């Protein structure tokens, strides 16, 4: 098995950010919530007026930007993973059931997918968060309930392909229960395809959380979400562009890494699910 340079880069990025998130308390030089009103809007240290105490400077409340960035990786990754677990469960269940049973059941699943696609994603997510109140849990659940359709599409088509294979018939002949067949025979065979979808959806969920937080209806302050950091820096961006550049680049690099990893997995597993 040969891993391409791009896949390796993706692995490197994601690996580094996972380690950052796990080791945040040790890595962060400052408390990400500690305000210092005497040291506000200090630019990164390589810029004029930078301070050696704050590598990436401070924000409008004097909080250390590097520490907030480090803690922010926790939020992005947590949102990404938890959303994909939720939406993956919903989508895979629907898709496998539709693909395996076919007929009317499949029609219903297809209809659900069509309806989901017709619902404007960001708008509905914003509405839900606005009505229930913003918190990490609400954002995860909302995105999880909305981002399942690609899991369903892929699980459905791959289950259809697997359904007619010999070992499924053998399992049926051996008298295995339907649930057993779905979990033990079908699911392991379609899993590689679902893993590829999971990377794509994780990237999407992270971008969406950032967008929601940017619009003020995602993760509530003072949590250091990268999207929120961009929103908070927006008022200062004309004079201190770095306040939006730093979290923006972090977001971009993380999503790029996940996508590179996903592309690599797709090539490695030989699945041909195209976006």
């Amino acid at each position, binding site marked *: 098995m040969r891993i391409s340079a791009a896949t390796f880069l993706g692995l490197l990025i994601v690996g580094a950010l996972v380690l950052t998130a796990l080791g945040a308390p040790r890595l962060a030089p400052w408390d990400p919530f500690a305000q210092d009103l005497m040291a506000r809007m200090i630019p990164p240290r390589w810029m004029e007026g930078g301070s050696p105490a704050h590598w990436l400077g401070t924000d409008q409340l004097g909080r250390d930007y590097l520490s907030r960035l480090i803690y922010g990786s926790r939020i992005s990754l947590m949102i990404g993973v938890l959303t994909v677990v939720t939406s993956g469960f919903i989508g895979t269940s629907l898709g496998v059931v539709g693909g395996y049973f076919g007929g009317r059941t499949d029609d219903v699943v297809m*209809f659900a997918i*069509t*309806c989901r*696609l*017709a*619902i*404007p*994603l*960001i*708008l*509905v997510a*914003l*509405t*839900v968060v*606005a*009505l*229930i109140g913003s918190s990490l849990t609400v954002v995860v659940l909302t995105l999880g309930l909305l981002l399942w359709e690609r899991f369903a599409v892929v699980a459905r088509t791959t289950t259809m392909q697997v359904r007619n294979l010999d070992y499924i018939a053998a399992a049926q002949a051996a008298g295995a229960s339907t649930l057993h067949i779905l979990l033990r025979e079908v699911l392991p065979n379609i899993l590689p395809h679902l893993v590829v979808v999971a990377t794509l959806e994780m*990237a999407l969920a992270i*971008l969406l959380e*950032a*967008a929601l937080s*940017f*619009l*003020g*209806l995602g993760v509530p302050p003072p949590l250091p979400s990268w*999207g929120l950091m*961009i929103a908070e820096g*927006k008022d200062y*961006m*004309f004079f201190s*562009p770095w306040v*939006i*550049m730093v979290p*923006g680049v972090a*977001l*971009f*690099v993380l*999503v*790029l890494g996940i*996508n*590179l990893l996903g*592309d690599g997995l797709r090539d490695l597993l030989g699945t041909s699910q*195209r*976006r």
Partner: protein
Amino acid sequence: MLGFLFRRAVLALLVCLTVLVVAFSLTRLSGDLAVSIGGPNATSEDIATIRKNYGLDRPLPVQFFDWAANAASGDLGRSYLYHAPVSGLIKERLPITLGLGLSGLAIALLTAIPLGIVSAMREGSVLDRAIGLVALIGQAMPSFWLGLVLVIWFGLKLQWLPISGVDTWDGFILPGIVLAFSAIPALLRLTRAGMIEALSSDYIRTARAKGLSTASIVLKHALRNAAMPVVSVAAVQLGFMLGGSIVIETVFALHGIGYLAWESISKNDFPVVQAVVLLLAMIYTGLTLLADMMNAVLDPRLRAG
């Protein structure tokens, strides 16, 4: 063909009805709407008045059918915030969002299709890889952040293009570019894959054997066959772009549907939220229907079937 379109139309109608239910139940999520509308300072008497004035004291199914029946006849209710008919508000704002979506789509197609064609013609080359990188970057770019960066760069440093508002047509350029970025990766990859398949086909060998020009071979014979999935995805992407314009409109201060929705969500103006959700779903459904019809025009085999 007609039977197929009829089935699709019935399906589209059912989808819109479902979205209607979803949009309605969505706004009832918070429990008591009247409390949300009244705000933190409302007394219990105020809330009771609100409940009565807005008809919120009636049973939910009654409220729903009342709203749905009115919506079907074009009456989308009144905005709590603007004290004006919702349909009027939407009519006023829709052109901006449509202009934004269409410029986004145009920019996306004008970028993705030529790049996809070139990529396919030079498959495996350095150029092909470079173009693949563009798709990868586009996919990873947070659109609102890209918008802000462009605003800083163009608006402030270069001062070429307006960074907010659409008083003139060039106000659509920057937000259009940002919106296009979200659609380019999918369209680009699809065009490339379709063109690679088409260019290696037997009918392209025939076209070359006939001595046709490269332009005719690539643009007439190959592209026509590669275009079908691109058309479908372009329609879907336009739907997504209109839905996603909420972010772009806030970045560029464009007062379109998205901005209206965001404002309404922040201020608990539910009739407007419901209406915009429904409208966007209808537009999306209409677009996919349109794509099916366009594909039938593109592929004679579909017409017969």
